[in-house]
């Protein structure tokens, strides 16, 4: 179906027709086409499945869809069979024939492709039964694993753009009121109430206004916004169009990083489709609203996620933050009133308009309404994208959704909020995850990064890791941030390499204070969070490094040594064979020893030993 939709009635007629066609053919093979699954060969699996379906003459009864991210990336490539919702994981090309013959044609399950619970060992066949999904509340991500992101028909059939139609019916003031009442706070990091920002932009004088979508997601290990743009670009477009209506903006920009090629591609396709349908452009759905969106690709600077730096970059200047004395809502892009929200915030808008502010307020916590998407990564059994109601505790996210720490190891810390978030220890696990509580505990919501660390993680080393990232991503304007972060990183290096003293720790604290107090933008002022929070919660670990020249977690190479427990070693020679330095010696079936002078502490011997005979101290 194509062609311009003349008015909201044409849209609903089209939706009904598309939905009926889908109901008549409910069988769908949905292969996750997110970047993670693609990297594991999902598109080849998709082609193999399509060929098998065709070979069995089932292509008229079975729909094939490459969808957006299902969120369960570590189990990819993922294949979902609708309408039953059967989920197969780690699917290979060689599995295609069996899936089609047994499951599609005969209704049997392929046991070995089912998810096996790492804790209980039980196998589940439906996505909704798996703990990872069962404990989530998927609103924004509801459709990303179901729809073909390059098909506007899929989106419309699922009710897409009906929120925009409803908004047009309500009018700008009522839309603004609805967003304000929903309590939606910006999902990009600062958590500013979206409705208040919209209102300021709407009230700002000027007939040329802009709405901007910040898709410059730069946190290492975070992919919330990428998954939304890749998997459901139309919901962001619809959200922005609703925003444009409320703020009377005629132009929009999506600032997306060049490193997200699939997101750029799907967004570009979706924009083209929306224009063809008359959902963007002049007189949207026959109304007085005229609005279009441009895609602007960023060069991948973390700092360009900061709104003033992003404005500079959008205008074609160097992406450097500057002091904002007047809000962007009054003086933004090219000096015009501008509203910036991030991808996830915009993606929430259609749901708020369709279901109402009261429905939205009922989800989540007081002061932090709705859900939040987290990228749950690190030392946790289930890694991936998690959408949970605000106010869920860290324990629920890590142990219910994530099903705890692998290999029976102990939880040590979780870093929330991306690279400049703080690290919270085990006794903070029952802290509810909302904007205000996390800040009060010395961390932050950020854009939703969540990195879980187990007992084998050295917190000094972790702080050093994040400081290295932040020091290299500082724009370089402020002395305090540019050189302060570099020096902090070097001082942490002194600690991990055994050169540190108590004075080093005092200097780290003093310098961190200056960086925090005197840097211009939030990159600098928050960059010291990893250092200050680990110093606060894990001070003994720092002291062990400087006082005893010891790394309690056994990570910092300069402070550890490997040895072999003669009692446990059975002389299998595996470590001796694998040691790149020939530092392990010993006769077959006799206990081996490590020559310390030759050892480079790479840890391979420990990794390969089947008997846990290699000791670290």
């Amino acid at each position, binding site marked *: 179906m194509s062609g311009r939709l003349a008015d909201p009635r044409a849209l609903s007629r089209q939706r009904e027709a598309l939905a009926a066609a889908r109901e008549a053919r409910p069988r769908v093979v949905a292969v996750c086409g997110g970047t993670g699954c693609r990297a594991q060969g999902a598109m080849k699996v998709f082609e193999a499945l399509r060929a098998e379906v065709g070979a069995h003459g089932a292509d008229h009864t079975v729909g094939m869809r490459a969808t957006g991210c299902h969120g369960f990336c570590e189990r990819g490539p993922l294949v979902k069979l609708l309408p039953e919702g059967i989920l197969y994981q780690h699917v290979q090309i060689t599995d295609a024939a069996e899936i089609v013959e047994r499951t599609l044609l005969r209704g049997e399950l392929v046991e070995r492709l089912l998810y096996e619970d790492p804790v209980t060992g039980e196998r589940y066949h439906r996505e909704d039964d798996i703990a990872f999904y069962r404990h989530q509340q998927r609103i924004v991500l509801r459709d990303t694993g179901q729809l073909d992101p390059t098909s506007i028909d899929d989106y419309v059939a699922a009710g897409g753009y009906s929120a925009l139609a409803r908004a047009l019916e309500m009018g700008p003031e009522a839309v603004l009121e609805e967003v304000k009442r929903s309590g939606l706070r910006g999902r990009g990091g600062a958590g500013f109430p979206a409705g208040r920002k919209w209102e300021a932009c709407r009230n700002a004088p000027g007939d040329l206004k802009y709405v901007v979508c910040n898709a410059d997601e730069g946190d290492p290990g975070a992919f919330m916004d990428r998954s939304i743009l890749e998997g459901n670009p139309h919901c962001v477009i619809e959200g922005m169009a609703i925003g444009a209506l409320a703020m009377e903006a005629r132009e929009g920009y999506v600032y997306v990083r060049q490193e997200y090629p699939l997101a750029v591609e799907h967004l570009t396709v979706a924009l083209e489709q929306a224009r063809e349908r008359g959902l963007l452009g002049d007189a949207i759905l026959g109304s007085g609203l005229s609005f279009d969106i441009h895609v602007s690709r960023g060069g991948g600077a973390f700092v360009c996620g900061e709104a003033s730096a992003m404005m500079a970059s959008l205008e074609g200047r160097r992406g450097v933050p500057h002091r904002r004395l007047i809000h962007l809502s009054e003086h933004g892009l090219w000096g015009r009133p501008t509203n910036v929200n991030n991808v996830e915030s915009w993606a929430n808008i259609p749901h708020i308009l369709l279901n109402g502010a009261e429905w939205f307020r009922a989800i989540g916590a007081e002061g932090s309404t709705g859900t939040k998407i987290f990228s749950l990564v690190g030392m946790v059994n289930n890694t991936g994208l998690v959408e949970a109601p605000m106010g869920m505790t860290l324990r629920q996210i890590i142990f219910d959704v994530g099903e705890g720490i692998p290999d029976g190891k102990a939880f040590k810390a979780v870093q929330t909020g991306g690279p400049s978030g703080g690290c919270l220890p085990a006794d903070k696990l029952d802290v509810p995850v909302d904007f205000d509580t996390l800040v009060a505990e010395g961390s932050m919501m950020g854009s939703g990064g969540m990195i879980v660390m187990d007992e084998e993680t050295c917190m000094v080393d972790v702080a050093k890791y994040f400081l290295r990232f932040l*020091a290299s991503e500082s724009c*370089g304007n402020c*002395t305090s941030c540019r*050189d302060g972060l570099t020096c902090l990183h070097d001082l942490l290096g002194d600690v991990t390499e055994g050169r540190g003293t108590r004075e080093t720790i005092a200097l780290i604290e003093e310098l961190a*204070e200056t960086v925090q107090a005197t840097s211009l933008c939030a990159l600098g002022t928050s960059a010291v969070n990893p250092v200050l929070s680990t110093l606060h919660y894990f001070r003994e670990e720092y002291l062990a490094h400087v006082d005893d020249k010891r790394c309690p977690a056994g990570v910092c190479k300069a402070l550890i040594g490997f040895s072999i427990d003669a009692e446990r070693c059975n002389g299998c020679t595996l470590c001796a064979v694998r040691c790149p330095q020939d530092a392990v010696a010993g006769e077959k079936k006799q206990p081996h020893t490590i020559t310390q002078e030759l050892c480079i502490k790479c840890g391979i011997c420990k990794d390969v030993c089947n008997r846990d005979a290699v000791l670290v101290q």
Partner: protein
Amino acid sequence: MDVELIIDEEPVTAPDGASVLEAARRAGRDIPALCHHEAVPAIASCRLCLVELRRPGRDWTQLTTACDYPVSAGLEVVTDSPQIRKHRAMNLQLLLRRAPDAPVLRRLAARLDVKEPLFAPVTDATLQDCILCELCVRVCSTLGYNALAAIGRGGHKHIGPPFGQAAALDCVGCGSCREACPTECIAMEDTATTRTIWGRTLELLACERCGRTITTKAHAAAMAAETDLPVKSSELCEVCKARITSERLASPGR
């Protein structure tokens, strides 16, 4: 229009649009600032001109830079406090890594009682002693030449011809960047007839009367183009212009 504000509990007036730094300096406060020049836009890079501000109606103070903060009515400014001194000294320590021997930093260190360096000096800078304040870039851009740029991020940030080119192709050799540089780290070499700067060698324009260097020919041409005046093949230096004028005034025939 002037606005009234308070600096260190003393009411002062400053022109609307002035920065807190300008207002404080007018009021006799000696606030250090290395990246500031009244002729170019502020970027608040060096982070030395720290002050504490309290806006009317607010019960909290804000530690911030004075050079990029405009004055407003009723603004209360504190130019010296233990907090200001502490953070200013630390930021100076960080700058000293980049230009340990620059006279301007040595003088400031003496004044701010910064004795032992806390951090090892930077050894891999592309421009020795550069503190990355971008005054050269901003002066060049304000003059309309845009021959220089800040390149790279974080510790890799450096100053030079745009896009890392070997020579600043739009440089006219006026030397303004060198004049503006607080640490005097920009190399400029003149021979009798040429000037070499930013990888470019440009011909010099000499005074037709005394032979002294006026500027480069490229700079003279650029100024002539800007002012719509005819480009002259020869030129007098400012000293000779003044001499000729006084000679004429003193000549008996006048």
